[in-house]
């Protein structure tokens, strides 16, 4: 592969651009230099750390360690879903519902991809499993948090309309149909938009990376198509799971709307 390795001097040269950024902030009194410094240091430290972790994992090829790192990634994604909710479910559900949806959706999609399409040796090889998981998680997380956020906000807004249907003898599924459909559409829309715009507006990062690393563009594109399909699958599974579970949690067996199971939004 015709791949050009970077020296640390190359990186130092690139950092000059960030320094210019800092000088601009000082000159124009943007007050950004402190944030900029912290962000730059974090970026470098986090990436170096990830590089070391991945290098170690690739050397070990241990199913245990790979699973452990994957679990940490899923845990962070679940936390992120919770953080993005304006109105959270009360108690453990705030974390558990999103987390369970992400876990189930990404596990199904990943095992399917790794055992059939990619067929690495062994199938759980971290070099394939972890980068793919990262991409699937990022998008599934967005779908789930958008879907859940739309569900809870719209149930609060449309409470009277949902209850009007319940009062007339509708079951909870019928009464919430419109709201649930809206939440599912919102959750899946970014993935659909990304698929239709990809290649025209922006070159996907993974594909670009492969091309920089010397891969044949058509081969890189094939990988990108695979990744897009995995993302679409993960997002739809996760969003449908989370929104339906959320709708079930916000009603009860007596077909009542239970908005008391939502926490008050923090203002």
């Amino acid at each position, binding site marked *: 592969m015709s791949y050009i390795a970077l020296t640390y001097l190359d990186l130092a040269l690139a950092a000059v651009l960030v320094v210019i950024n800092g000088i601009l902030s000082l000159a124009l009194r943007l007050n950004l230099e402190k944030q900029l410094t912290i962000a730059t240091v974090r970026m470098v430290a986090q990436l170096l750390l990830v590089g070391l972790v991945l290098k170690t994992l690739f050397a070990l090829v241990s199913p245990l360690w790979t699973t452990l790192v994957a679990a940490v990634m899923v845990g962070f994604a679940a936390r992120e879903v919770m953080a993005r909710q304006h109105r959270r479910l009360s108690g453990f559900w705030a974390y558990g519902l999103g987390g369970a949806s992400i876990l189930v959706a990404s596990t199904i999609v990943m095992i399917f991809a790794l055992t059939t399409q990619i067929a690495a040796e062994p199938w759980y090889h971290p070099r394939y499993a972890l980068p793919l998981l990262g991409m699937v998680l990022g998008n599934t997380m967005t779908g789930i948090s958008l879907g859940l956020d739309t569900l809870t906000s719209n149930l609060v807004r*449309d409470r009277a309309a949902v209850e009007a249907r*319940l009062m*007339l003898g509708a*079951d909870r599924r019928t009464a919430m149909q*419109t709201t649930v459909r809206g939440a599912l559409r919102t959750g899946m829309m970014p993935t659909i938009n990304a698929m239709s715009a990809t290649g025209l507006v922006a070159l996907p990062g993974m594909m670009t990376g492969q091309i920089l690393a010397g891969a044949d563009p058509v081969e890189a594109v094939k990988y990108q198509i695979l990744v897009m399909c995995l993302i679409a699958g993960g997002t739809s599974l996760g969003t449908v799971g989370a929104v339906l579970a959320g709708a079930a949690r916000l009603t009860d067996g*007596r077909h*009542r709307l239970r908005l008391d199971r939502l926490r008050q939004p923090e203002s």
Partner: protein
Amino acid sequence: MATPHGSGYGAAMLRVRDLVRPGLSPVSFDVASGSCLTVRGPSGSGKTLLLRAIADLDPNGGSVSLDEQNRDRMPAPAWRTLVGYVPAEPAWWADTVAEHFSDWPANAPLVTRLGLPTDMGTAPVARLSTGERQRLALVRALERDPRVLLLDEPTAALDETSRDAAETILRERLAEGVSLLWVTHDGAQARRLSKRCLNVDKGQVTEGDV
């Protein structure tokens, strides 16, 4: 407060025993088949909470039964089909009027009697007046032929003619054996409709004469 001399003890149709929920102390009463019990009390006293609890729209305790059939032994949607609830501010989930009815044309006689045009099925709900919505909500509840109706100020936004039409229609239902639990702030209306009433004050419910 169970009353031995209440509205039809023994032949009770709707039977409420120790019904309790947040904001409401335990309450017991009966509404006999074909009779009306008015509900009175200041705003915020718990009248709506009482109706919602009977309709099983909020978590509540105690027992409610209709003709010896306990509410908890049937699915909630079946219960709410038998016991219809018309809130003070009816809500709408679709754009046009007809979408809220299972069979809009079949309701034409009721709609006409309430002074509404029968061609309003395609009208957008957002353009209707409060009074028009209130009458449509009544038709929507009656369409399902409930055995009991829980009415939260069903004529508050109506002019005299429409109010009389609504009262006449509901009296006919009474004659057919439907029971009514009717929240009203209008003393004259309460006296026209019933001899007994529930007085709600700060979550305490007492039964008395109108």
